[in-house]
């Protein structure tokens, strides 16, 4: 490869999926949702990522289908632009620059050339307004869209808190304890307020709003889990509302089904509730969806629902409330305490997932491999309840043993469990071997295995360091008790301490002969065979934040980072400080396959990366301004095949890939490739033309239709009959009030005439119909055409019904009718 471009930081997972409601494409084959700065297109059938729409320079806050062209998509972003995409091909059609941060986007079918957006009010802090943005139809890619008019003032920034009513006649918006409804035609604004708390102490705060698609009904969700259905809100005083109550905590989102017959609601309970016809008693549930529901959306054909969850998961649900698909990348945990650990067996990244679970995240496919339920306790959704969670994880070198520490803090007590899991090859699952309650009397600060690849189990050592001023060494012992079921179990071998200082870090040297444990300001080095204290290092006044041994050629060095902003390198042979550098290191991560050590510093709100070898104080690579967020953890993941990297400077990325984890729980990595190579993955996909054979069903249907169009004259007659019903004469007859109608004798010939069939006209129309049918068969199966065929089918159905009745009109009957027509009806007027 030619000299690689500069190292680029690439986000490779964990970007929040729940920026806005997801949108189904018109045919419900694709699901479009926001993901950080991108819009992702997923296939609803296979849960695969089909396409990523890149181009926004900020968080994408809203996606809407273009109501006038169902194959186009509007997206809004914090970078102040609205983009129009052709999402099936991933082409950016137009960019409208608004110039304000856009917090939500709404598109209405009734508004030809404008969309609605929520923007911050100029001058006011934390006040937002709903505006209508006029999208000019001028040619060109980049268009300014500065022309906008304010619709509502003082709306909530959340896209959930504003909704447009039936056919865009009104807009409802909630904020705090107020609901305001604005009618576009009448230009009338109605405001309804609730008291902050009701008699029973419930929280009346509005959390979300949804409008019925067919009726004038607004559903609002509240902080206490109630849902109110508002009706008759044209009047400021005479409005009514009914209450639905199932959720025990705040309603996170509401959504009406396409026809409005049912209402979907979701909350922190991770249960999707379907309310039928607005009554409190008829409801269906889909429980155990994993985590709190953030957004609910419905496909336009009503067959699929989609829920976005707070842990970055998308669930696709059938309309009969059966779980269908789940798209899960990196789970957003509440708090990642375990750091990034690489499972040697699956090469997956392991970290906190759902509460009490460990997630195994596959880096290659950006998918969750599985999540391991370590705590095995039911998670109870309740505020203020302290639940057991995982704080430390360590794998042995081959991934045979897994050590987990879980803790539950209930002031002033602390509950700690150290669990040692053995990977059982037979059943291909982890099996609990030893569970140690309260291994330390205070929080465990660090845990590590002695990594010795070639040796067997009996040399395996686990060290835990705790705030109770101790570090403990755990070893595997052959159990002497014959009653014990298993022959191997873990027990404590040695307890060490140093001047009653809290132990903060521990790590083994590469060959496993030395153990370094840091106690506040001091690093102690212990011989791992005799557990003698060999030497101590310190760099006052800073407390040790992180320590690491050098590897391979640099194994005689020990690196330590202090919280007073120093990075120190000690020589273990001379027991002297080799060098130190002034650097506020937050993360220190050695590469397991090379001498390189990565240090991430945090200074004046930006992170920088320094890669160095311990034997020389000059860094090999400096990468400033990695990202705006603070980097919490880093991990080197070994590559399967060493990458060929042209530039000398980035040779340290050859054997392993470096991943970062920011405090917004985004996973970043480096790419040495020029951007276009990564960008055009999808465009490079094998372009295979769609040439589908007709399915047996369509063959059957086509044949049937053909027959109909050729043979069944009556059917076409019916078609026309229907048309003639719409003739002015009949319409007049049917729609005029009876008391203004002329006499029946006058009307009768007109009516009967209208029922008769003229022969010339028929043949012409028949031919036309045939042509239409044929062209239909020739048509390919693209989306728009599908719609056409669907419409056609709908037309046919009523024809069939009508046909049965009228097709009996034979020639004889026709003559009869003519006769009737010629008869004199004047006698009727006598009555």
């Amino acid at each position, binding site marked *: 490869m030619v000299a690689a471009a500069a190292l680029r930081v690439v986000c490779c997972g964990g970007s929040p999926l729940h920026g806005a409601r997801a949108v189904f494409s018109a045919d419900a084959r694709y699901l479009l949702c926001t993901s950080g700065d991108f819009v992702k297109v997923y296939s609803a059938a296979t849960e695969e990522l089909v396409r990523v729409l890149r181009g926004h320079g900020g968080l994408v806050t809203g996606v809407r289908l273009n109501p006038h062209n169902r194959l186009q998509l509007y997206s809004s972003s914090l970078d102040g632009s609205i983009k129009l995409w052709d999402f099936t091909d991933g082409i950016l059609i137009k960019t409208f620059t608004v110039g304000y941060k856009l917090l939500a986007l709404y598109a209405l079918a009734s508004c030809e050339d404008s969309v609605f957006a929520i923007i911050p009010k100029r001058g006011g802090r934390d006040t937002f307004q709903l505006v209508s943005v006029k999208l000019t139809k001028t040619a060109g890619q980049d268009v300014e869209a500065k022309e906008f008019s304010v619709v509502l003032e003082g709306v909530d920034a959340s896209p959930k808190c504003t909704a447009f009513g039936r056919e865009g006649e009104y807009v409802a918006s909630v904020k705090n304890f107020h609901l305001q409804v604005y009618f576009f035609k009448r230009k009338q604004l109605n405001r309804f307020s609730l008291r902050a708390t009701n008699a029973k102490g419930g929280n009346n705060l509005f959390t979300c709003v949804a409008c019925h698609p067919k009726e004038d009904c607004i559903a609002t969700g509240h902080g206490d889990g109630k849902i109110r259905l508002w009706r008759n809100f044209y009047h400021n005083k005479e409005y009514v509302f009914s209450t639905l109550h199932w959720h025990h905590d705040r309603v996170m989102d509401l959504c009406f089904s396409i026809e409005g017959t049912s209402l979907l609601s979701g909350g922190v309970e991770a249960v999707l509730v379907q309310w039928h016809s607005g009554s409190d008693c008829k409801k269906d549930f889909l429980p155990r969806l994993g985590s709190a529901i953030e957004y609910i959306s419905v496909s336009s054909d009503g067959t699929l629902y989609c829920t976005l969850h707070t842990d970055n998961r998308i669930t696709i649900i059938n309309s009969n409330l059966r*779980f269908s698909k789940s798209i899960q990348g990196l789970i957003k945990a509440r708090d990642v305490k375990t750091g990034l650990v690489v499972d040697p067996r699956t090469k997956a990244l392991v970290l906190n997932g759902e509460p009490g679970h460990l997630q195994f995240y596959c880096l290659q*496919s950006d998918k969750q491999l*599985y999540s391991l339920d370590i705590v095995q306790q039911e998670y109870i959704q309740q505020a203020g309840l302290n639940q057991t969670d995982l704080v430390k994880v360590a794998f042995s070198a081959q991934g045979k043993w897994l050590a987990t520490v879980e803790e539950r803090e209930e002031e002033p007590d602390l509950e700690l469990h150290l669990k040692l899991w053995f990977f059982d090859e037979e059943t291909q699952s982890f099996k609990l071997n*030893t569970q140690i309650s309260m291994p330390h*009397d205070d929080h465990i600060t660090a845990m590590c295995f002695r990594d010795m690849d070639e040796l067997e189990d009996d040399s395996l050592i686990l060290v835990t360091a705790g705030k109770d001023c101790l570090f403990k060494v755990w070893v595997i012992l052959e*159990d002497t008790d014959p009653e*014990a079921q298993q022959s191997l179990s*873990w027990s404590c071998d040695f307890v060490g301490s140093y001047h009653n200082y809290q132990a903060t870090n521990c790590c083994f040297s590469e060959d496993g002969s030395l153990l370094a444990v840091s106690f506040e300001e001091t690093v102690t080095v212990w011989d791992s065979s005799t557990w003698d204290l060999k030497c101590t290092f310190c760099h006052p006044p800073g407390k040790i934040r992180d320590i690491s041994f050098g590897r391979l050629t640099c194994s005689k060095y020990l690196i330590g980072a202090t919280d007073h902003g120093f990075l120190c390198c000690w020589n273990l042979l001379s027991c002297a400080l080799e060098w130190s550098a002034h650097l506020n290191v937050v993360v220190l991560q050695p590469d397991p396959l090379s001498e390189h050590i990565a240090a991430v510093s945090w200074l004046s709100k930006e992170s920088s990366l320094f890669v160095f070898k311990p034997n020389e104080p000059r860094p090999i690579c400096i990468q400033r301004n990695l990202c705006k967020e603070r980097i919490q953890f880093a991990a080197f993941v070994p590559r399967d095949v060493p990458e060929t990297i042209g530039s000398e400077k980035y040779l340290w990325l050859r054997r392993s890939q470096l991943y970062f984890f920011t405090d917004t729980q985004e996973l970043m990595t480096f790419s040495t*490739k020029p951007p276009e190579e990564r960008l055009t993955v999808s465009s490079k996909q094998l372009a*295979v033309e769609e040439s589908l054979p007709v399915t047996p069903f369509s063959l059957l249907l086509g044949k049937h239709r053909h027959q109909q169009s050729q043979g069944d004259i009556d059917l076409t007659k019916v078609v026309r009959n229907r048309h003639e019903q719409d003739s002015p004469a009949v319409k007049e007859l049917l729609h005029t009030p009876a008391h203004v109608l002329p006499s029946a004798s006058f009307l009768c010939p007109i009516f009967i005439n209208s029922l008769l069939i003229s022969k010339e006209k028929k043949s012409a129309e028949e031919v036309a119909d045939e042509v239409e049918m044929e062209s239909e068969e020739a048509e390919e199966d693209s989306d728009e055409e599908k719609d056409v065929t669907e419409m056609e089918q709908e037309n046919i159905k009523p024809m069939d019904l009508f046909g049965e009745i009228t097709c009996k009109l034979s020639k004889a009957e026709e003559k009869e009718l003519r006769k009737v027509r010629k008869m004199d009806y004047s006698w009727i007027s006598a009555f």
Partner: protein
Amino acid sequence: MAAAAACGGEAAARPPLAFSPCDRRLLAVSGSDGRLRVWEAAGSRLRHEYVPSAHLSAACTCLAWAPPGGRPPPDKDGPQRKKRKSEAAEVDKQLDILAIGTAVGSILLYSTVKGELQSKLDGGHDNRINCVRWHQDNYCLYSCSEDKHIVEWNTQTCKVKCKWKGDNSSVSSLCISPDGKMLLSAGRTIKLWDLETKEVYRHFTGHATSVSSLMFTTVKPMNENKSFDGITGLYFLSGAIHDRLLSVWQIRSDRKEKNAVMSFTVTDEPTFIDLTVSEVKEEPVKLAVVCRDGQLHLFEHILNGYCKKPLTSNCTIQIATPGNDGDSTPKPVPILAAAFCTDKQSLLLVYGNTLQPIIERVSLNTSESHICLIRDVQKVLALKTDVAVTKVKTPVVNSDTKVLVPGIPGHSAAVKTPSSGKEKNKSKRKPGETEDSIEERLGALDIDVSKVKTPGGLPQTDSFAVLLVQGLESNDSDILNKVLNTRKETLIKNTVARMPIHAVIPLLHELTKRLQGNPYSASQMVRWLKCVFTLHASYLSTLPDLIPQLGMLYQLMESRVKTLQKLSRLNGRLFLLVTQVAASETVQDVTEVNQTAKLVYEDESSEEEGSDDEMIADKDSDENWDEDEEKEEQSEEQDMTVEKEINGDSDLEPENESEEE
């Protein structure tokens, strides 16, 4: 690397399966029910399932993944191609199109990303498709069929690009050369075609039966001194149905050589072959051959010219069930396919049932020539099936897990002695133990069964001590429960005071054991412990092996008193103070009490006062016990009043008196 399902052959019993190229992330399997399933190799999870509309009439006969991503068709040679592969592994290129050959002669192109049929290639063959192969660079698809023809398809337009007769009989297998300019085809004999002119370039003898797999093993000729024209000097491998030999052929510049260069021998007909392509001369070709009998053979060989003798495998892998519960005989689990991972060091094994295969990554260890992996297929599947909304796996937690709580040996350090007391207990806990043995024991304890007269005929508290010693000796839980469950402090105190010194350590062990159990009983045991330590501290301090004997107890106490540490310390000090004061007050009276009044010696031979006392208790019937306790309760009430005045731990005097009555 290349993967090939052994497709073709008249009797393909195994359903076709294919690993996705490059990183082997996905496995496509067409089951016997005609459904196509795509499995994820990591975690063997079902990605999705596709049912072709004519899956019953036109069964799937062969599968091939389209190469991921794309490049403009380059004219590049070996080393650059290698780079392309590593990039493909790095950049997450999506795998999409899967070509499915059917039994009626049509080819389906299925998009695994969209989950729908992309197109159908029709009109090329009128009989069963035996093999489909994608061209690496220009997205041409090659197919061969029972109808003796080979067809080149343009997948962009889904039209036949070229069709020619490939053999006199059916063509069963295809392979495209590494440079993409030649095509190998085989019925029974193997032909090498020039793709541009569609003319036969070379003939090879082939096999006696129809060839089921063809594969190039090298991308560069082994002797680099000659100029390389893209094909000369390369080796390829072929396997045929009903043939236990895999042949290796070399493409030579002279047209004469038509026989195999060498061969590998396996135990049964090969059904799936995978190999790592060697790119350098020294690097051996690694070959994994899955046979019909479910075994996997691994070969490692540096290809270099002739070898007359067929080579046997370096390593054979089999899989079997453990067969320990339910059915006692281990059953073999057939291996369905195997593929080398990108690092060439580990192997993906597919085993079990084709409807729900298990995919596992095994690291290679060729030092052993025969490996039998034991896998509990039932349990692996059971763990997998309960995955619904979330992919949560629950690890196994059995009752046989060792649990360490504070106080148990091994929880903290310094316990390395596998306590001797424990072992003793074990030997005593043998099931054959009966009451008779207690008698024997008592005899062994040198207790003379002599006539003893109770002075007042009344039961006494010291009988508790006797019972306790008995219980400890025989480890009889009934007796121990009876004794240790008493709640009266004075009674406990007296019992402890009167028990023989040699029973102290066993008592402590027993107490330690009980302390670890039920918290309710632990609170009882604490009273006993307190008494033992106040009364026998001096004895205990003389013991040489005190630390190993009582280490566990010490740790237990350490961990228990952690809460409210200061308060309990204060309590202890006060208690010490009070007892000392009380002791100094009553020091004159106490001396007498214990020994004198209780015993009457009739026999001169009796040596141990204590043992005599025990005998009293021994003879006491159970009814007497009850009376005894009742009486004591009465006396206890009296004591209580006294005790309240003197702050709990008073002298032993009043109590003893009441007991003497």
